[in-house]
Every structure is written in structure tokens, then in C-alpha cells.
């Protein structure tokens, strides 16, 4: 019960702050937390990156293995994205199959990569209909301090850009970097009363009235969106947030571009 009381007090406080354009951690409504990226963090993976977005920590690892193309896409490799919110990440963990949060997270990240055509899946075909590369993008969530979606896609993209196709190990030619062609970035907003803030903290996500994630690419396209949580956005909100998403996405792309 005391837990519910403290949750409610926090919610009221976050809401009061938002009325005067303020946030719990002192950020401006449109301000992202500090972003730090460590590509190649895990050498056992074919590509990897640790992303720290404020206190949020996501580790992405890429594994590339020979496999079989899907019957309906015989000329393409296979992309498999999996997210695990492991129990060190937050007190909400429950044992059992992946939580619905993990499932949504992996699907939203996967959709952005796929819709933006970020990697060249056709280039991962070895023998049409018979052999291809399977690209596993595994997202290990180490600290859920808010906005996992944006951090996870940044980690996935940084890890893909860091990845090498281990062709020699499997006697399939020469090892070479993975062909990454496009550069989607997701920007997540939450509504707090009448304010809409970017890059929400876990406290803000816990008290928000709707969350909207918008994925943009470097060519000016919106490639994916996901409205989540209880709450609503007007068409005008959406139009405005799309603009803000491009500004934010280009800023992150610039930061990430300097790495590789």
C-alpha cells in the first residue's frame, strides 16, 4: 500500500513540475540525457555496443551464423531481433517467458531496422532458397532507467555498424564488415499532462498519459511509429512530434556517425 502511495505522490510531483515546463532531473522538455556509446564492448560477439543513455544501459550483441532463407524470401538473409529485460535491470522482473514489454521492445526495434532497410538483407543470401546468413541482434537490457526503445535501437545500430561477417570461420569466403546502408533512429516522447517530453526517465514513463515512438531515417522519411501506454495524442500532436523526431534523430545520427 505504501508503495502505491509513494507512486501517487511521485506522479503528482512530476505532473506539477511539467505544468511549469520542468522535469524531475532538471532537464528541459526537449532535452535528451547524456549519451555514451562503446562500440565493440563484447569481443565474443561479431559486433557489439554498450549504450548508456543517462542511467539507462543497453548492451547489443550481433551474431552471424549460416542458416536457411525463409521460403517466401529465398533471396534474402534472415534478421532476428530479440530483447531481454534481464532481472538486474529493474525491480519489475518476473520469472518466466519474455515479458510483454520485452516482446514489444524487440518488435519495435526490429521494425525500425527492417522498414529503414538498415542492413542489406539480400546481400546476406549465399545460395538462393538454400543458404543464407542469419543475423541475430540480441539486446541485453542492463539498467531500465527509462526510454529503453531509443537506447536499444542506438545500441543495435552501433553494434551492426561494428559487426563483421565471419565468413572465414564458416569457410564462406573472406571476413568483411556487415553492409549497413541506412540509419534509423527512434525518438520517444511521453505526455505528462499538457506537456510532451522527449527521452523519458523511468519515473516519467511510470506516470505518463501516453507514449509515442517515431523512427526516422537519414533521408527524411518516417519509417516506423508506435503509440504505447494508456493515453492519447491528437493528429496535431503527432505532426509536431514528427518534426521534433527529425531534429532529435539527426542529432543522434551525427553523434553516432563520428564513431564509425
Amino acid at each position, binding site marked *: 500500500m505504501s508503495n502505491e502511495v509513494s507512486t501517487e505522490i511521485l506522479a503528482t510531483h512530476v505532473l506539477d513540475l511539467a505544468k511549469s515546463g520542468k522535469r524531475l532531473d532538471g532537464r528541459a522538455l526537449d532535452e535528451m540525457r547524456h549519451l555514451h556509446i562503446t562500440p565493440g564492448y563484447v569481443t565474443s560477439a561479431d559486433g557489439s555496443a554498450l549504450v548508456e543513455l543517462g542511467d539507462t544501459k543497453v548492451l547489443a550483441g550481433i551474431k552471424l551464423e549460416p542458416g536457411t532463407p525463409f521460403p517466401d524470401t529465398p533471396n534474402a538473409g534472415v534478421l532476428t531481433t530479440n530483447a531481454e529485460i534481464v532481472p538486474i535491470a529493474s525491480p519489475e522482473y518476473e520469472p518466466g517467458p519474455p515479458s510483454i514489454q520485452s516482446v514489444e521492445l524487440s518488435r519495435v526495434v526490429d521494425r525500425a531496422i527492417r522498414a529503414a532497410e538498415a542492413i542489406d538483407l539480400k546481400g546476406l543470401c549465399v545460395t538462393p532458397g538454400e543458404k543464407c546468413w542469419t543475423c541475430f541482434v540480441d539486446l541485453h537490457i542492463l539498467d531500465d532507467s527509462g526510454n529503453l526503445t531509443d537506447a536499444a535501437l542506438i545500441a543495435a545500430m552501433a553494434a551492426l555498424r561494428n559487426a563483421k561477417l565471419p565468413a572465414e570461420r564458416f569457410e564462406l569466403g573472406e571476413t568483411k564488415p556487415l553492409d549497413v546502408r541506412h540509419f534509423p533512429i527512434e525518438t520517444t516522447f511521453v505526455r505528462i499532462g499538457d506537456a510532451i517530453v522527449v527521452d523519458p526517465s523511468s519515473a516519467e514513463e511510470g506516470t505518463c498519459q501516453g507514449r509515442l515512438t517515431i523512427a526516422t531515417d537519414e533521408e527524411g522519411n518516417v519509417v516506423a511509429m508506435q503509440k504505447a501506454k*494508456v493515453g492519447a*495524442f491528437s493528429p496535431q500532436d503527432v505532426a509536431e512530434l*514528427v518534426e521534433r523526431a527529425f531534429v532529435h534523430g539527426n542529432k543522434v545520427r551525427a553523434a553516432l556517425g563520428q564513431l564509425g
Partner: protein
Amino acid sequence: MGSVGAKDIPELLDANGKRIDGRDLNELRPLKIEAGVLQRATGSAFVEWGENKVMAAVYGPREVHPRHMQENTKAVVQCRYNMASFSVDERKRPGLDRRSQEISKVIGEALESVLFVEEYPRTSIGIYIEVLQANAGTRCAGLVAASVALADAGIPMSDLVPAVAVGKVAGKLALDLRKEEDNYGEADVPMALVPKSGRLVLLQMEGHMTRDELKTAIDMGVQGCHKIYEIQKEALRKRYSIAHDGGDAQ
């Protein structure tokens, strides 16, 4: 935006701008809604929309098991979207795959946005959707059915929730995609509207759209939702009038 097959891509728009099934770009498929179709459920609805057939039922508010799942300040909304194994071309293994889990989550959150859950603390409201036959747009059809089932159950809501997808087909925006358009189109934007507030409670997108296309797509979807809203209300009027005549819906 589903899996792209190896087959030849069909021509999605003809010389006159007509779609594969003869519709105009901003034309809905035929939609029929019937409320109160199931005996055991608190509320229910059946939707036949183009070649989609979807049934929804609501149970509750009722006790929550196990007890630590209950919340002291609100009802827990449990939503499950499921496809029958024979509802699609290739038999689907029974049970919820990851796609169905995600859809269950976004539909549940959309509907909870119009429910007064704080009125029913320590209870659960179960919203269950079964897709019997699928032809693109089943999440919207499910949401439309579930919304009518909630009303049929007598659960107070701030509004009914119509839903529809807008896509991009052969370079043009088109309302309410059917299967071929979904498979071979360039983008898909499903959305659900609360007509009284003019706000969207479900919004997803996959594909490629410019800002302007997206804006127009949402406008088209909102228009479509208003038409669906009328059909939802008509279904409930019919249900109530049958109930008031002393009969019961078949």
C-alpha cells in the same frame, strides 16, 4: 508490409485509379457489426469487414487471480488478441506468437484509455478477440469489435473507439488496405480514434512516408474512423432495441 513473397507483384492500382477490388482510394470495405452474439460473455460483438471475420467478448469486472496481480486503485485490463489456426492461408500454430502479444498490448492500452478503471479497484476486465478469418486490418477489426463488446457489457466508457489503417499503395495513400495491398504496399498506418476528443489511442506505422504523407494519412484515417463510428453506434442501437422488445439477439 508483411512478408514479401517471391511471386509476381500484382498491379495494385488500375489506369482509372481503382484498387484491386474496385474501390476508390478513400473507400472502406463493407463493414457489418453485430452486438450481443455470445451467451456466456458479459458483452460481445461480431465484425465482418471485407473478408475479415472477428469475434470479441468482454468478461468482468470480476475478481483477479492470483491476488497479487490485482491493483488497489484500479481495474486491471487484460487483453488477448488471437488468430484461429485456419484464419490465414498457411496454417498458424495455435497459441499467441510475438505479433499477437504485441497487438494484445497496444489494443488493451488503447481501450483502457477510454475506460474508467479507477471505478473498479481490485477487479479485472478481460477483453478477448478471436480472428476467425483474416484479410489485413485484423487489429483494427478486433479493436472495433472489442469496443462494441465493452459497450454491450455495460462497462462505462468515455466513447466508442473506431479504428482503421491507411496505407501507401503504388505511391498513393489508400484507406483500409486489403491483403494484397498490405503485402505489396509501401507503408501501413493503423490507428484508433476517440471521436469525442479527436485523439488517437492507437497509432502504429511501418514503411516509408514523408511528413506530409503521414499527415494526410492520419487525416484520411480519422475520416474513416468517423464512418466506422456510425456503424458501431447503429449496431448498439439495434442491440438495445432488440433487448427492449423483450427478445434477445441471436
